[in-house]
């Protein structure tokens, strides 16, 4: 904490958000310890192939987590993203394979559709002040059902071989394409959150909606835009997922929403709204990814892995509560 204050004084122009990065040093430290431990104890952990595999494994969650960070900073929540991934994957399969649409047109349609439906949900949330949890829970259920309706609960194959590049391909034979897509996404979201009027509005709306409205910030428009972004990223996640498994599948993305929310929270974004950062979210996703990978390499039972992830989430939140003085 002392370093934080010193930093703030030394560079008066720094905003509270920039200082959040320093608050995140705890997570960075935890990540480092985890890395060293796994290096010592997990066989074949510290190979570049394995580490790139981790990056590929976390890519879809990471991209969706960026959008989720905006959602949570604005004080909302989106529990529909896992189902939205399943729906998008299913729809892509139906359009591209069953309906013989050109692949590019099917992808464009899926992305646009996901964005529009989420915008509509955002509009409902704003217009009638319904809690985002309820709106997105309704979407979670409907998306899940719709995915089964259009696929009759069967995976749809085959996509053209060339499609596999987005989920399975490599750049320079070693860097997974989805990992690159994730890093680009993190970069774009970092820029949006720290350098744009929109990003500032997201923090402001989550920090104090009433004060934001009185300052002439378009609160409703900001919220709807956040929903649209969340919908777009979930749809994109569905497309990449389809490419990774080379099928349009109704049963992908199950539980993804809570993995993503957990990573965002571990990354230090407050569910109360108003604070959080993209870097933190990226570190949170990375932490969870390394943990799963390490535990698998060490032969930990997958069921126990789930228990471990749950406890780590609780522990991470407790640490952040203990670090901060309680605000009234």
């Amino acid at each position, binding site marked *: 904490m002392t370093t934080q204050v010193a930093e703030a004084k030394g*560079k008066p*122009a720094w*905003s*509270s958000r920039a200082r959040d990065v320093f608050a995140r040093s705890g997570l960075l430290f935890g990540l480092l310890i985890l890395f060293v431990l796994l290096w010592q104890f997990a066989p074949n952990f510290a190979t570049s192939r394995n580490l790139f595999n981790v990056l590929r494994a976390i890519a879809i969650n990471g991209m969706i987590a960026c959008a989720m960070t905006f959602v949570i900073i604005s004080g909302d929540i989106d529990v529909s993203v896992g189902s939205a991934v399943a729906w998008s994957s299913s729809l892509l399969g139906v359009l591209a394979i069953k309906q013989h649409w050109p692949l590019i047109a099917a992808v464009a349609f899926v992305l646009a559709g996901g964005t529009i439906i989420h915008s509509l949900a955002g509009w409902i949330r704003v217009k009638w002040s319904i809690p985002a949890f309820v709106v997105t829970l309704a979407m979670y259920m409907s998306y899940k059902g719709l995915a089964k309706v259009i696929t009759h609960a069967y995976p749809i194959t085959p996509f053209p071989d060339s499609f596999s590049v987005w989920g399975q391909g490599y750049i320079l034979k070693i860097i997974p394409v989805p990992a690159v897509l994730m890093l680009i996404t993190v970069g774009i979201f970092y820029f949006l959150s720290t350098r744009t009027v929109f990003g*500032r509005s997201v*923090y402001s709306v989550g920090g104090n909606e009433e*004060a934001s409205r009185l300052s002439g910030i378009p609160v409703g428009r900001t919220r709807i835009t956040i929903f649209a972004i969340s919908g777009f990223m979930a749809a994109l996640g569905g497309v990449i997922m389809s490419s990774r498994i080379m099928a349009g599948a109704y049963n992908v993305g199950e539980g993804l929403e809570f993995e993503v929310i957990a990573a965002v929270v571990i990354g230090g974004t407050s569910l109360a709204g108003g604070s959080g950062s993209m870097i933190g979210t990226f570190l949170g996703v990375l932490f969870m990814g390394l943990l799963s990978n390490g535990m698998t390499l060490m032969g930990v039972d997958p069921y126990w892995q789930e228990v471990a992830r749950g406890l780590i989430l609780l522990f991470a939140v407790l640490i952040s509560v203990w670090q901060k003085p309680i605000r009234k």
Partner: protein
Amino acid sequence: MAPILALEQVCKQYPGVVALDHVDFTLDKGEVRALLGKNGAGKSTLVKILSGAVHPDSGEIRIDGNPVTIDSPSDAFHQGICTVYQEMSLVPGLTVAENILLGRWPRQRILGLSVIDRKAIRPIAKAALDQLEVSLNLDEEVSRLSVAQQQLIEIAKAISFNPRVLVLDEPTSALASGEVEVLHKVVRRLAEQGHAIIYVTHRLQEIPNVADTVTVLRDGRQIGTITAGEATPAVIANMMIGADWRRTEWGAGGQPGEVKLAVRNLNREGLLHDVSFEVRGGEVLGIAGLLGSGRTELVRAIFGLDKLDGGEICVKGEVISNPSPITMKAHGIGLTPEDRKRQGLVLIFSVQDNLTQASLSRFSVQGILQRARGAGLARDMVRSLDIKTPSLGVLTNTLSGGNQQKVVVGNWLNTLPEILLMDEPTRGIDIQAKEQIFHLVRDLASQGLAVVFISSEIEEVLDVADRILIMNQGRVTGEVKPSEIGLEKLLARVMEEPAS
């Protein structure tokens, strides 16, 4: 016969303020005593002492001639003093009967479990309501009742303790006039039954209807106790104000310029009635009115926060058909809201972010922030408003009230407004910060801004304004020049009932 309640030489001091200064106060059986005074006069401290929420530093409290100490709110009940606060303490989801007996529901044992005895609740609750002679459905959920009915339940709840002394803290501030009459009847009835009642109010017009006697507090001292018949607005205003106040001379201001803001016949159901006024550039228009007079509703409506039922808002000659904060900002209007923590600031943001909240467009190109320019705007504002902050990066909730208020004002000044609506900019800040805000308001006017200034403190309005609009119950009841009206006269006018 000893009075039911007697306070003798009661003192209470807070750091930096004497809240009660050797106050004597007696109350007889069956008496309704109105308690009056400006904000900070000591009314609420007196109420808190009687309810056991704070303890006096010295002095004696006697009930029926016996000295008592009131250690806690529950102790106050046992001593026979019940207080009904302005804020409702009812549970909306429970019934009328359940609320009246909240927390002391009769129990019965069923199969070894302690269970609420629903049948036993009703007669006790009914007895309390009967005492008030009001009929309410005991099984109705409280959330379905009007504010006035809820107020009556609060009183019934207090009466069910069978108190000797009932303290009502501004019971009518949220009620419409018809409902006020019902409440007055209930109060009179309770007095006839022998309860002694302390009735805190700032509505002068209700005194003859409800009170027998009036006590006025000022600066923590008991100024005097008179009969309700003697309590004319002029007398009360004189007692509330005292002689030691003088208007600051600001020197000759700039000549008022063109009309910046004109509103005509603004109406909002039950809140605003045919409000019209103009403000010119270089002019400070003060609005004097009590809480609930419609002053906040007026500026909120102008700023597009609440829907209007009729009327016209005209900014620099242009009629604004659909006001919203965004359009009003674009037309050069700013509003510093009355509640800086809830409405004015994002407390978990840095000072810099709060100073530039409303002016993002000034330092962004195509939606991309130019952070150095934003920091520059904030730094200049910290300097020109003399905001005391260790840096631009500290969180705004660490600043003092006065400095937070300056941040709220600075946020709007950064939008380069031509019209600034200031709702209670001096609320809850220290004297020095108040002085600075006054100077700032005068400075802004001399730079050509049109300022609308609202304050609960009538002295402040009189001090800082070039022209004063008097508001009462949603109407403009007069317009005066500060130099031509004294403080007492103004206060009396503010408290008078409008001739409707």
